[in-house]
């Protein structure tokens, strides 16, 4: 009895082993170089990326790109950093460009060779100014931008038309200063009987930061976080933006208790006419079959800018890079950029100008209506602690939410913000404690 059991068990193990061994040969034909490629894109973005990869894998026979999807946010960035530190990282990865400053000084990334890229038709001229500049730090190109995904405005053309806030071209009226935009929203609210604007912020620090920094930068200034401190913050712009956000979420212009889900529900069921969120919500709006148009966040403070981040390609640090694989990685990125028209389906604005300047792109609606936002994007202040998914955004968003909800204490919030940032700047930069990268 015992013997037979053991034999059975042994046979089972052998079977499992054989099965596993056959599984090992996966990953494309053997004569191709396999490129390991990490990205955090799942759902709508993930499906489009998978399609782009399949196309490229089929279109040539030199290399095979093997994607690995990791959970977005902290899990992804942690694993990417650890892979770079270990020196046996994947050949390629996607990052948010505002996170790059937390990676490159510690040697977690390898810089791109600009001349090698230029040979493949990828150089400064093919990108909008702010996007390219954001990728170059200390004279080196650390990331190749795939897109910009700004924080934007969606508006329901039917409701806005009926409320009388569209111009003759069917575009939302250009507001005349801060009061002007509030008036537009109130006009819509009068028509819908609810609020005019949907903005999900409650318990969503990143949403708060995105809109806050847009309004801040519309004052024509940006924050600067030099290592060692102190942070350069424009007090008037800070208070102005903060006060304005509190006025927006007064319960009339926009709900004072709007969270992400309820704001989407509100807008997509026609209870409001305007909706602030990232371009990536386009798919949701398309699914809801709304008569929707898009544009930059209205310029209420003078300078037309909008907060954005970019997906970009990086080379995680490899101790001993295989030059052939590197070559293929460059080729792959060039190919993917050229074919990135589909990427616009997810709402993102492709960063590669030959794509956005093409006639095919011009025909995409509503994508083409906000494509010029790419010339007006602002990114997070450059520092090791900022960027999408960072703890910084979490903390700061919570601070701002406090005075948005109470409608007071703006000066206190500014002081808290300043001392929080100064504390981070004065402390050692864990990426680069010796400050060797200035």
């Amino acid at each position: 009895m015992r013997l037979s059991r053991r034999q059975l068990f042994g046979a089972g193990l052998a079977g499992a082993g054989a099965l596993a061994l056959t599984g090992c040969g996966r990953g494309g034909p053997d004569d191709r170089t396999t490129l390991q490629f990490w990205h955090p894109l799942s759902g709508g973005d993930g499906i489009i990326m998978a399609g782009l990869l399949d196309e490229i894998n089929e279109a040539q026979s030199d290399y095979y790109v093997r994607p690995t999807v990791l959970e977005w946010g902290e899990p992804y960035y942690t694993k990417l950093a650890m892979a770079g530190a270990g020196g046996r990282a994947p050949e390629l990865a996607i990052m948010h460009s505002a996170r790059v400053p937390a990676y490159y000084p510690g040697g977690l990334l390898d810089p791109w060779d600009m001349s090698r890229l230029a040979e493949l038709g990828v150089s400064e001229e093919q990108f909008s100014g702010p996007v390219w500049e954001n990728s170059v730090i200390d004279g080196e190109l650390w990331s190749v931008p795939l897109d910009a995904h700004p924080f934007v405005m969606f508006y329901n053309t039917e409701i806005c038309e009926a409320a009388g806030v569209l111009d003759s071209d069917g575009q939302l009226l250009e507001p005349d200063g801060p009061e002007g935009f509030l008036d537009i929203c109130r006009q819509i609210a009068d028509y819908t009987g609810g609020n005019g604007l949907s903005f999900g912020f409650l318990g969503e620090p990143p949403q708060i930061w995105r809109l806050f920094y847009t309004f801040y930068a519309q004052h024509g200034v940006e924050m600067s976080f030099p290592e060692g401190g102190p942070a350069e913050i424009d007090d008037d712009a800070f208070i102005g933006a903060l006060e304005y956000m509190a006025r927006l979420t007064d319960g009339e212009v926009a709900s004072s208790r709007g969270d992400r889900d309820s704001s989407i529900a509100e807008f997509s069921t026609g209870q409001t006419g305007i909706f602030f969120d990232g371009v990536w919500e386009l798919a949701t709006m398309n699914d809801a079959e709304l008569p929707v148009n898009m544009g930059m966040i209205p310029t209420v403070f003078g300078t037309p800018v909008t907060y954005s981040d970019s997906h970009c390609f990086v080379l995680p640090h490899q101790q001993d890079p295989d030059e052939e694989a590197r070559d293929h990685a460059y080729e792959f990125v060039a190919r993917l950029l050229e074919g990135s028209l589909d990427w616009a389906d997810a709402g993102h604005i492709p960063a590669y100008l030959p794509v956005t300047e093409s006639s095919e792109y011009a025909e995409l609606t509503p994508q083409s209506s906000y494509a010029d936002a790419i010339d007006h994007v602002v990114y997070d202040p450059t520092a090791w602690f900022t960027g999408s998914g960072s703890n910084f955004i979490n903390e700061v968003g919570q601070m701002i939410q406090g005075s948005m909800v109470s409608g007071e204490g703006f000066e206190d919030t500014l002081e808290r913000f300043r001392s929080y940032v100064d504390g981070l700047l004065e402390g050692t930069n864990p990426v680069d404690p010796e400050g060797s990268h200035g």
Partner: protein
Amino acid sequence: MRDLKTLSTEPRRNREWWVAAGFLAPFMLAFFMFVIWPMAHGIYLSFTDQALTGAGGNFVGFENYVEAFTDPTLWGAMRNTVWFTIISTVPLVIIAMTMALLVNTGLPGQWLWRLSFFMPFLLASTVISQIWVWIFNPEIGAANSVLTGVGLEPLSWLQTPHLDLISITIATVWWTVGFNFLLYLAALQNIPDLQYEAASVDGAGRWRQLWSITIPQLMPVTGVVFVLQILASLKLFDQAYQMLPGSTDTSRPIVQYIFEAGFVGYRFGYASAISYVFFALILVVGIVQITISRRKVQR
């Protein structure tokens, strides 16, 4: 007498030393490489600003420890860890004991009981986390289906502060109670039948026997199970890291804070300091255990 013996066996001892070295070398090598050296090096790291990226490594004195003792996040993590230990240890001991007592009555279906209660313990933390995240899904999870089925409001099990650690506790009790159950079952086998026989001759019923023989006899093993469980609960990481949607001040256990400080924040120096604060906590529990068990022996 003793000296004389040592002297007379000296040559043999010398030869045995070499034999012993041969037997011990593989283990000791690994032991020094992967336990002793990291322990010592961890102490050293805790006095530096070493970063994950390889940068830093300057001696900073007690800076990391000073920061640790004034870091509200660390104290929050400490509080969460202790709280989890309390709310998980009690049910993990009581339910395990109840299961073992019931199974030990010799009711039919022994194989099934052991399978049901012990099998979860054999599953990886990843597997149980995925199963419970699915059960606790706020929109379409089974837990909420049960609640709404009996007319209660659905809950956001893993997304609500304070409730989240309780949800982790529920999953943990289900996962690991089988281990304690086995320890109790083994202990129950060691109670001599004679005691029960004597008791029933004296006319003691089943219930009396439970309280006068079984429970008192289980006290020593309960002590052991308690200590093993406390030490295990203090090390909470796997299921909390994998089940909770993000790390919050009301749910982050201390081991997760070590991980975050070191691998998310890159601060190896600080993470090492936190590790040793955590180690101190474990040592305190260990010393309490040894003191208690010594006292028992003396009695």
